[in-house]
């Protein structure tokens, strides 16, 4: 049963990626709302948040992220297991058709490391998301102080 389910998941994933590869999402149908970065001092890794909105008729899959301001941008997911907090690297993130996925504290987030220039609250940072099939989305993220709760602060 487990093997069958595994096979089914594999087939679905394969079919899904074929469909995605065939129809790259037009970037104008994708955008990020409430984008922001939590600044941390001492050149520590920072986190990027926002809500990715997909207004297209097909699911899209984020494969990687990058920024001219950071040496590395990774898609991460924080989770709790038995009271322990742990962070996982995410291989890809799917945004369903006409759906949205939140990158928010305590869940999915962009981890920004190795800043290439000094970054401080008040700055803005460009982040590009690369989608399966070749689509790209560039968004300007405002940098907020460490103790901000979000862009509406």
């Amino acid at each position, binding site marked *: 049963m487990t093997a069958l389910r595994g096979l089914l998941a594999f087939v679905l994933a394969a079919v899904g990626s074929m469909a995605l590869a065939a129809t790259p999402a037009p970037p104008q149908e994708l955008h990020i709302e409430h984008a922001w970065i939590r*600044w941390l*001092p*001492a050149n*520590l890794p920072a*986190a990027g948040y926002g809500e990715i909105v997909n207004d297209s008729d097909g699911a899209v899959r984020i494969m990687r992220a990058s920024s001219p301001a950071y040496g590395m941008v990774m898609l991460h997911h924080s989770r709790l297991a*038995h009271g322990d*907090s742990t962070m996982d690297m995410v291989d890809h993130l799917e945004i369903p058709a006409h759906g949205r996925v939140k990158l928010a504290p305590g869940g999915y987030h962009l981890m920004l490391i190795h800043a290439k220039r000094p970054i401080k609250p008040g700055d803005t940072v460009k982040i590009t998301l690369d989608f399966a099939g070749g689509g790209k989305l560039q968004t300007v993220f405002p940098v907020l102080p460490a103790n901000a709760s979000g862009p509406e602060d």
Partner: protein
Amino acid sequence: MVMSLRRFRFHWLLTSCAAVLLAACASHPNWQLDDVSGHLPDLKFQLTNDLGKPVTAATYRGKVVVLYFGYTHCPDVCPLTLVHLHTVLQKLGKDAGDVRVLFVTVDPTRDTVPVLHQYVTAFDPRIVGLTGTQDELARLAKRYRAFYQRETPKTSSGDYEVTHSSAIYIFDREGRARLLATPGATNDAIYHDLKILAEHP
């Protein structure tokens, strides 16, 4: 080994929570967090603060202590908790003077005194960062059944994560363990209980 330890700790938590529920019905104030009175040992440690000065539990006797384990290369969950605690301190107003938030690093290798200082003060200048030797930190974590583990680097740059317990431990002015806040606890619940502890010298 790690799994069985974790499971033990989880079961222990469940059992103590059940016991605590019974006790809470009897006479205690209307705590919104988990009452752990009598289930965890008094506050005891010997560490270094974020100004490089040696401190012990006695340094904070007379204050309500909020203890949290974390590390500065933690950009998501640790800031979330520290922002909650900053918000609570602001809401407490002058009562915040009777409360000390202690952020204990579980990553002493990277969390040098200056980095720790910059990190905690970026959230709230009233938050104190504590570090120590691996032994000193392990002893404190073990005392409160807190778990942490350095993970293998996931990228070639050698950056690593540290999995760690996310509970917040609250001690009264005499250093007695009183309450445990899980990550799901709201700011209002933490504020509510800290205010009671702060107002009862």
